[in-house]
């Protein structure tokens, strides 16, 4: 496990970091949180969260729980919960998410659908 302290709380425990000087090509499947500061071409699926840094260049469809975007993405986003689009983000693709926030300056070219995904919480009977 790699610890990265200067990231949001949801990224304290990071399973994978694709650094600035790294190019990843192919279909990347993960279970935990992923930070991308470098280049990714292909597809990305994870059960955790994804943070796309300001210098990142992603040409891939992404499926994740939560996504924070400050960099460039060419591809569709399927986000189960929350998508945060930063001021430096450039998104060229369709978005499907439950909640979204967009900072002034962000560029989005694509359709945006807001669908409430089923929460992954098991209800316990209370007697």
């Amino acid at each position, binding site marked *: 496990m790699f610890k990265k302290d200067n990231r949001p709380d949801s990224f304290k425990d990071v399973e994978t970091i694709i650094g600035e*000087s790294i190019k*990843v090509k192919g279909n990347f499947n993960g279970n935990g949180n992923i930070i991308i500061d470098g280049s990714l071409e292909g597809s990305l699926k994870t059960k955790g969260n994804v943070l796309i840094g300001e210098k990142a260049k992603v040409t891939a469809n992404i499926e994740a729980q939560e996504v924070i975007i400050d960099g460039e993405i060419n591809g569709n986003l399927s986000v189960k919960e929350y998508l945060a689009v930063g001021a430096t983000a450039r998104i060229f693709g369709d978005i499907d998410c439950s909640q979204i926030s967009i900072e002034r300056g962000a560029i989005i070219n694509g359709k945006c659908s807001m669908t409430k995904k089923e929460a992954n919480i098991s209800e316990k009977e209370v007697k």
Partner: protein
Amino acid sequence: MNLYIYDDYFKKYKKALNNLEIQLHNLNLNGKIINLENVKKLDQAIKDEVNTGIKTIIAVGNNHTLSKVLNAILNNNDISASGLSLGIIPIGNNNSIAEALGIKNDAAAGEIILARRLEKINIAKINDTYFLSEANIRAKGTTLHLENFSIDSTNRGQIRLINLLTDKSSSQNIKSNPQDGLIDLYIYDSPKKQSFFSIKKLKVENDSQKILVDNSVEVECPAIIEQIDQKISLIVGKNRLF
């Protein structure tokens, strides 16, 4: 009874070796000694001793000694590593693995072997060579092929494939667990350009560079590096790094 396997570079460490033997004798840790300079087939020599009931093998030397002993055990189909314990007594330089196991020097080793605290750790393999600690190669020009994707590095830097972490550098903020069944792939260029993946198996390609394993053995590319299912019991000290 223990089996001690001495490496063959001890000419300038005679005093340390004498002190060690006195220490082991005083702790009642006597055992059979195999000297590598007198043995042609280490795997056969170990097998013969295991057949007499030896359960603990102590490599006396450095990372390279441990590598030779580990490979002699694991490459011998007639020896079941699961029933054996492996220890190291560090002599001289290049002893990062002993330090990671909490064995700082030869003077501390006797008490640690006597205490016999055991930890099972994963074993990694590069082509036909087993290793405990890590494999290193320069990042530039190296391509890593994983199951569904590949990784290229555009800058200079170092690729580390870590099973057992032997340093805790503050600039390279790594946490690695040698008992989790995964190899930690760490690509370091600068504090702001670090990459990290947890993997089970990959292929390393580089046309001009070799891979350095456990800081002691060089392996040509292309090479397959993987975590094997088997673990080995190591004698460790309280100050181990995991």
